[in-house]
């Protein structure tokens, strides 16, 4: 059974066809990378999967359940976790409180202990009591990931989670991702860093102008002319 299935999903904003007939099936435990030029519809795809936007046409299935048009909180409760490209933290709360807030619909009793663990794992313990909007850009990215780790989603969507994060902390993030994957978690990862995509993704989906133009392993897509065109032809 697939974890996630997209069937001809489309969404336009005004005259812009942000996502154009995307179909995609993701198997349990897979790490799928989504790459493509700026504005190719990657983040919009995440917003369609998580219910932030409703598809104009097409269907979204999570574990064979049709979740098209569901409100985001209901989709989240099914076991979908995500980070945002632009961090959307609870700015008036501390780092620690942000993590607690992530557990209000889950295991609240163990949330304080779990929050301390997550802070330590992401090396954020020294800013535990700092307000979220006082954190650096990289720290905010980490805290976003931390919120996802507070829950136990079976599907995690990461939108450029390593952008602006120090290389050593990238390793921390990658270790966390691998560990969760080994425990059975499925990932969809938007990344611009090709080296990272190469090391971590089982399969890669290339988007351009809202469409999937190629899919395959890193070596396969690296040899694909569409990808060359999308990345090199117009310059990234």
């Amino acid at each position: 059974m697939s974890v996630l299935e997209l069937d001809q999903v489309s969404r336009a904003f005004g005259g812009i066809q942000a996502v154009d007939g995307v179909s995609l099936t993701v198997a349990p435990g897979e790490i799928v990378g989504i790459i493509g030029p700026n504005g190719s519809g990657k983040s919009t795809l995440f917003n369609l999967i998580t219910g932030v936007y409703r598809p104009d046409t097409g269907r979204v299935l999570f574990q064979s359940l049709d979740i098209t048009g569901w409100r985001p909180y209901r989709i989240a409760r099914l076991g979908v976790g995500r980070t945002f490209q632009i961090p959307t933290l609870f700015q008036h709360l501390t780092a620690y409180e942000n993590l607690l807030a992530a557990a209000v619909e889950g295991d609240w009793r163990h949330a304080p202990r779990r929050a301390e663990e997550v802070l330590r794992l992401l090396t954020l313990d020294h800013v535990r009591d700092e307000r979220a909007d006082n954190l650096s850009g990289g720290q905010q990215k980490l805290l976003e990931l931390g919120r996802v780790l507070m829950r136990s989603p079976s599907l995690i969507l990461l939108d450029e989670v390593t952008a602006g994060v120090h290389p050593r902390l990238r390793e921390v993030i990658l270790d966390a991702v691998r560990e969760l994957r080994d425990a059975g978690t499925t990932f969809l990862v938007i990344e611009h860093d090709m080296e990272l995509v190469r090391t971590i993704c089982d399969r890669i989906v290339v988007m351009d102008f809202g469409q999937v133009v190629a899919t395959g392993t890193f070596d396969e897509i690296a040899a694909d002319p569409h990808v060359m065109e999308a990345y090199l032809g117009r310059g990234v």
Partner: protein
Amino acid sequence: MSAAIPRITLAVLGLAVLASLPYLLDPYWLRIATGILMWAGLACAWNIIGGYGGYISFGHSAFFGIGAYAAGILMGARYGLPFGVALLVGMVAASIVAALIGWPTLRLRGAYFAIATWAFAEMLLQLATILEITGGTAGLTLPPLLDERFFFYAMLVAAVVTYGASYVLLERSRFGYRLKAVRDSEVAAESLGINTTLVKIQAFVLSAAIPAVFGGIYAYWITFINPTSVLGADITDQMVVMVLLGGLGHFWGPAIGAVSMYLVNRLIWTQWANTTAYIAILGAVIAVVVLFLPDGLVSLWPGTRRLRLVRALARQVGRQAPRTGAAEEKP
């Protein structure tokens, strides 16, 4: 844990002092203390939706008025129901009304909610002046109870329950985290499984039920109510300004704001016997708070966390941006 014991001791001490006030104050100051308790409770209630929820209600006078009229109508000659029943009915009525207003408007961003609550309160004010059951502009008279101590204790119990419940719900439970998460980012809150619409409606209902109780006690205390005295927009204005002055979104902000504003109000009244100057002072306080003291008087206390909510809210009410999310485009 170590801080918990002195905090409880402090609370018990504070309560003991408050409870003995009727035996320490002369009748004039006892009435002022009763008024402060009422406004501290009202401001605390407004702070739930305004400070913790981030949605500005400009219609809270409606809930105060609903409670007052529930007491005026039910305790009057026609029905003659007991005080407690009138309070309960007022509270339930205000809760239902809040749910009905909140259901459509709390899905939208703050500006719509602010306008809708204001319009509703205006409508209720006009309605009370023409309806027969509310006594029109002439108002209603309640059976007099000339016992100042009774009303002081009634307000004290209501205020203590209000602050106690707020403390538990907003500072010590999941509900508080849900609400603050919604205030800071609805998209992020939803992505974590929080039903943002439900949380906002719950907060608004709670925030509306409390003023109804105070309205009921107030009506019985004053024994005479009319539309402007319990449904006037100045009641909302005072709640808002007290919270801003004390500290928006801070637990003790409303209490500090209520004490200082109410004392200033009384002082002006005894000095010049008019309230025009008071309205000018309200305006000045808002300006000073927004410009120089965004976290209100409570932030003068060392170590207070800077929330800086005032500016965020001012921006939000000024802007008409609909929320991003599926709710706005639900099937």
